[in-house]
C-alpha cells in the first residue's frame, strides 16, 4: 500500500479545495447519465415531431377548435415555423414544462438522499451550500436545455415543414419573421422566469424529503392547486399573489405594441417566490441533520 499524501492547508488532504469539490461538469455528468434526464430531454425533442405528425392527419373542414381569441393559436399553428413553435410552447407551457422543471429540480437532492450517496458527498466534504448551488445550477441548466430543445426542435421541424413565414396571431398584426423570432425568444425567456417558481418549490421540497417522487409530485400538485385557485374569481385581488396568476402573461408579448405590464409583474412574482423558496431550501439544508 502506498504512502498516503501529506497534509494540505487547514488540515485538508492535499489537492482538496472546498471550492473545487463537486465541479459543475461532474454534477452535469452525474445527471446526464440518468435515464430520466435522457428521457425528459428526448421527449422535448419528440413532442414537436409528434405534434407535427398529428397535424398531418388534419382532414380539413373541421375548425371547431374552441372559442376565444387564443383558439387562433391552434388554427395558425400550421402557418409557419414560428407559429408552429408558438403552438408547441403554448400546449406544453401549462403542464408539461412544469413537470419537466419539477423533475429536474425536485429530483436532484432527494434522489441522492434516497440512494444514500448524499452523505458520501457531504463527507467528501462538499460544503453544503456548494452542493446545493451546484445542484441547483445544473438543474436549472437542464430545465433551460429542455425549453431550448423543445423550442429549437419545433422551430426547425416547423420551418422545414411549413416554411419561414411571419408570426401570425389574432392578438396582433402579423410580425415579420425576424421580429417574430425575437418575440418568440422573449416568450421563452418569460416562460423560463415563470417556471423558476416551480424550480424553487421543487428544490425546496427536494431538500426536505428523501422521496424524489414526493418532491416532484408535490411541486406539480401545488402548481395545479395554484392554477385552480386562480380560476376562482371570487378571490379577487388575492389571485395576484398566486404564483400561477401571471403564467399566461407571455401572450401579451405577441401583441403590438408589446404589453409588458403583466410580464413585469409576473417576473416580479416569480423571482420573489423563487428567491423565497431557494432561500428556505438553503437555510434548511445547511442546518439539517442528514440522516438518510
Amino acid at each position, binding site marked *: *500500500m*502506498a504512502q*498516503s*499524501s501529506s*497534509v494540505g492547508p487547514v*488540515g*485538508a*488532504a*492535499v489537492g*482538496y479545495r*472546498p471550492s*473545487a*469539490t*463537486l*465541479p459543475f*461538469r*461532474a*454534477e452535469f*455528468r*452525474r445527471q446526464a*447519465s*440518468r*435515464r430520466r434526464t435522457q428521457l425528459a430531454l428526448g421527449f422535448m425533442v419528440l413532442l414537436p415531431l409528434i405534434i407535427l405528425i398529428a397535424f398531418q392527419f388534419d382532414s380539413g373542414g373541421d375548425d371547431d377548435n374552441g372559442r376565444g*381569441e387564443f383558439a387562433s393559436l391552434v388554427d395558425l399553428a400550421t402557418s409557419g415555423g414560428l407559429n408552429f413553435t408558438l403552438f408547441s410552447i403554448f400546449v406544453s407551457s401549462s403542464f408539461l414544462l412544469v413537470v419537466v422543471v419539477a423533475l429536474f429540480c425536485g429530483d436532484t437532492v432527494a434522489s441522492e438522499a434516497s*440512494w*444514500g*450517496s448524499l*452523505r*458520501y458527498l*457531504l*463527507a*467528501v*466534504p462538499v460544503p453544503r*451550500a456548494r452542493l446545493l448551488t451546484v445542484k441547483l445550477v445544473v438543474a436549472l441548466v437542464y430545465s433551460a436545455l429542455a425549453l431550448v430543445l423543445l423550442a429549437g426542435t419545433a422551430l426547425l421541424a416547423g420551418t422545414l415543414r411549413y416554411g419561414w413565414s411571419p408570426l401570425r396571431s389574432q*392578438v*396582433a*398584426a*402579423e410580425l415579420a419573421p425576424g421580429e417574430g423570432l425575437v418575440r418568440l425568444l422573449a416568450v421563452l425567456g418569460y416562460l423560463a422566469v415563470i417556471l423558476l417558481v416551480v424550480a424553487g418549490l421543487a428544490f425546496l421540497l427536494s431538500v426536505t424529503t428523501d422521496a424524489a417522487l414526493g418532491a416532484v409530485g408535490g411541486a406539480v400538485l401545488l402548481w395545479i392547486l395554484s392554477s385552480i385557485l386562480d380560476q376562482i374569481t371570487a378571490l379577487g385581488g*388575492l389571485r395576484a399573489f398566486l404564483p400561477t396568476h*401571471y403564467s*399566461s*402573461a*407571455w*401572450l*401579451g408579448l405577441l*401583441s*403590438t*405594441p408589446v*404589453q*409588458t*405590464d403583466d410580464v*413585469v*409583474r409576473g417576473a*416580479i412574482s416569480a*423571482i*420573489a417566490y423563487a*428567491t423565497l423558496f431557494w432561500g428556505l431550501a438553503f437555510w434548511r439544508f445547511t442546518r439539517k*441533520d*442528514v*440522516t438518510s
Partner: protein
Amino acid sequence: MRSPLPVARIRRALAGRPRRLVAAVVVVVLVAAALVWAARPDRTGFRTESALVTVRSGPAGDQPVDLDTTLYLPDDASARHRVPAVLLAHGFGGTKESVRSDAEDLAARGYAVLTWTARGFGRSGGEIHLDSPDYEVRDAERLLDRLAARPDIRLDAAGDPRVGVVGGSYGGGLALLLAAQDRRVDAIVPMITWNDLSRAFLPESTGKGPTEGVFKKGWAGIFFGGGGNAGSGPAGLSGTAAAQPEGAPASAGAPSPQPGAGPGTGPGRAPAGAADPSCGRFAADVCAAYLRIATTGRADGPAVDLLRRSSPAGVLDRITAPTLLVQGEADTLFPLTEADANARGIAAAGTPVRVAWFTGGHDGGAGPTSDSDRVKFLTAQWLDHYVKGDGAAPGDSFTFSRIAGFDALDRGLVATGFRTADYPGVTGQVRREVTLAGPAQAVANPPNGNPAAISSVPFAGALGSLLDGVAGDIPGQHARFESEPLADPVDVVGAPTVRIRAASATGEAVLFVKLYDVDPQGGATLPDGLVAPVRLTGLPRTVEEARPVPVTLPAIVRRVEAGHRLRVVVATSDQAYATPAEPAVHTVALGDGPLVLPTVDATPIPTTATVWRWVLAGLLAAIAVGLVVVVLVARRRHRRQDSSIHPAYAGVPLAVRNLRKEYADGFVAVSDVDFEVRPGQVVGLLGPNGAGKTTTLRVLMGLTQPTAGEIYVFGHRLVPGSPVLSRIGALVEGPGFLPHLSGLENLRAYWRATGRPWADAHFDEALEIAGLGDSVHRRTKNYSHGMRQRLAIAQAMLGLPELLVLDEPTDGLDPPQIAEMRRVLQRYATDGRAVLVSSHLLAEVEQTCTHAVVVNKGRIVASGPVEEIVGESPSVLFDVSDPDAARGVLDRLAGVRVLPDGDGGLVVDTNGTARSEVVAELVRAGIGVDRVVPRRRLEDAFLALVGENSRGSGDR
C-alpha cells in the same frame, strides 16, 4: 384529570418541538388572516337617505313632480363640518341605482352625493322632456335648492351650495344645461354627451344642417324604446346593456361614463295615465317630433328646434363652471366631435375646459381598466380642486388613449394613454396626406335600405367592431378607394378628411363614407364602427361634371401600422341610418385632394407599469446585494472559523471528547463518548444495536451536529463540512451508489466530486480491495449486498485517507472475504494511518482491531488495547459434575469467589490462585471437572451489557 402529568407532557412536547409550534402558529395566523379578510365588513364611511321628493318645475315653475332621490352623506358631515356636494345624474333609461357605485366612491372621497331618478324614469313621476331647460334642468335646480337648505352641505352663499355636477350621456347633457342655467354650479364633468342633439341624431358630414341630416335610426329607436313604457323596450335590449362587460354600471367604479343601463331596467312603474301607447313616458311634443322624424327620415324645423332646446350648443357661453369633458372614442351615438364643439364653445367664454378622450363610449362602455382609472382620476382631480378646494389646478392638458391590443390575462382590451399640453381639437396638430386611388364606381342604393351594410351595432361593445374587422359592405352598394401600403406608421388622432365626387340620375344621394385600416393580409378594420353620412344634392348625371365635396370623416384615435393600406369606402346603405327608399344608381369617384390624416404629437402617460419595472429592477438589485452579503458573511464566518490545531491532538487521527447528541424529540442517542484513535491503531467501536455507534459516526462525518462535545481530527476541530474531513474515508450506514452507474463509474463519479487530482485516487488499489473482477463494469443496482459493501469500502479507501471509518464493514461478506478484509484493515493502519471500525460482533473486533471501545446506551463502558481487554481475565468458567458441591469447595479457597453468573457452569474469580490449584482442589473433593475455560475481559464487558439489556434501547 388533574394530575400534573399531561401538563408536563405538553410542556415537554412544546419545548421539544419548537419548529412544529412555529409552523402551527404560522398556519393559524394565515387562516385567521384569510377569515378576517373574507369576513371583513364592507367599507361604509357614509350613510344614505332615500326620499321621494316633490319639486315644482315646468315653464312657470308650478308643476309638481315626484323625484326618487338618494343622498349619500359622508359620516363626518355635520353642521360644523359642512361637506361639498356632487349632483350625480344617470344615463338615459337608467335610474338613481345605475350610478350607485359611482356615488359611493364619491361619498368615500368626502362628497355629499345626491342621485335621483330623472323624471319619466323609474319611480320618479313626470314625462321625459329630453333634458329640457324647463323640466329636467329645472328639476335639478330645485335639487340644488334642497342641497342648499341642508345644514351639512357647504355653502358659497345663502342658498348657493358648493356643488359639482357629474353625469354621463343624458346626465352629461343635464350637467352642461344646468351649468348654463344655474350659476350656483361650481364645476361640471359631463361625459359622453352631446353638443347638439339634432346633429347627433341627424348628422351630415359635409357640413349641412340637421334638416339635411341622415337620420341615425338605430340609436334613435333604442332611445325612444328606452323611454317608452318601462319594460316594454325592444326585447333583449336591456339584457344587452346589462351583459356589456365594460358597461355594467355596478362594475365601473367612480364617475364612469355610462350610457345608462339600457331601457327598462329600472323598477318599472308606469305612471298613471300613460295613455298613449305610441309615446310611453315621453312628453307629447318630444314624441310627436320623434314620430315625424322616424317616419320620413328627415327632420323638419320644429323638430330640430325642439332638439336644439335640449342641447347645450346654444347656451355654452353661459357656462362659467369649470368643465371637464370626457368623451368616448367607441361611440357612434355622440362621437368625439360633440365634445369638441362643447369644448370650443365653453372655452370661448373664458371658462376653464379640459378634454379627455377614452376608448369606451356608448359602444365601448367604460373601456379598459386603465382608461376607466384615468377617467376616475381626472374626475376626482377636477372635483377636488374646483369643488372641494383641494389640490393644485388640474391644468388643461389633453389626454386620450388608444387601443393597444388584448390583455393576455383578462382577455380584455388594453389601452395606452397619451398626453399633450394643448387640446388640438379634432383637426390635429400636424396633418399627413395620403394619396388614394381608384376608378369611378357605380353604386346602387337598395330599395328601402335593405340589405344594408353593418358598420356598428349599438351597445355591441368595442370588442365586436374591432375583432370582426370587415363590417359587411354589400357588393354593388359600395365603392373602394385605396392607398399604397404606408411606408411608416401614422397615429391618427382626430377627424380625417377626404374629397369625393358623386353623380346620380336622381340628382341627390345619401352616401356613407368610411375609412378602413387594411392589413397586409387584406383584413379591413373600421375603427370603432364609425361612418360619415352625407346627403349630396344637386348632383350632375355624370361623374365628370361632379364637383369635389369635402367630407369630414369621424374623429378616431388609431395607429395605422407601416405596410397597412388605408381604404375609403363610399356605400349607399347603412343599417344604423335611414336611407332613401327609392332604388337608384349613383356613380362615385375620388375628389381632387388626398386623404388628410390629423396627428397629434403626444407622449405616453406613464402607468403603474413603470413603477413595476422599477420594482422589478429593485428586486433584482436587492437579490444581488443580498447574495453578496450572504457570501461575504459566510466567507467572514469561514475565516473566523477556528483553523488552529489543538496541540494535544496534533498527531492523533481522531479524538472524540465528551460527545453528546440529543435529537429534537429529546432522545439522547449519545450521552458521553470519549475516545481516541491513534496512528497505527485499528479501533473497534463495539456495542449492541442502538448503542450510539452510528450516531457517533454520523457526527464524525459531519452529517449531524453534536449537541455538546468536540471531535478533533489531527488536532483540527471537526464541524460539518470541515476540510479535514477530506482526510477521512468513510462507510457509514451502508453503501450509497448511483444505481444506474457501474461500480467503476461510481468510484470515478465520487472521485470527480472530491475535485482532487486523479492520480491521488489510487483506483487500482481500491479496485483490488473491492475484488469485484469484471462485475465492476456492471450497474450497481444489480449488485448483491456483499458486492456493494466491498465497493463501498473501496470507495472509502479512495485517496488512501489517513483515517478510515467503517460502519459494520463485514456486513454481507462471506467468511473468506471477512478474513481478507481483516488483513486489509490491519495492513491499512500503517504509515501513520488509522482505522475506526464499528461492529456489534465481538469476534470481529477481537480479530481485527488493536484497540476496542465498548459503548452501550450512549456511554463508553470499556476501552483499551484489545490484548489488554481480551487478555486473560481472573475469571474462569468451570463445567463441573456437581456445581453445588463445587461451590462449597471453592468458597473455602482463600480469595476465590464464585460469581453470580454462568448457566450450567460456575464463573469463578480465581483472584491470583492458579487454575491448576483450583482444579486440583475440586478433584480432591471428588468433583468431576469437564471443562475449564478462561474468560476474557472484553467478553465479560460485552456480555455484561448484552446480558443486562440489549432490547429497548432503540436505534442509536
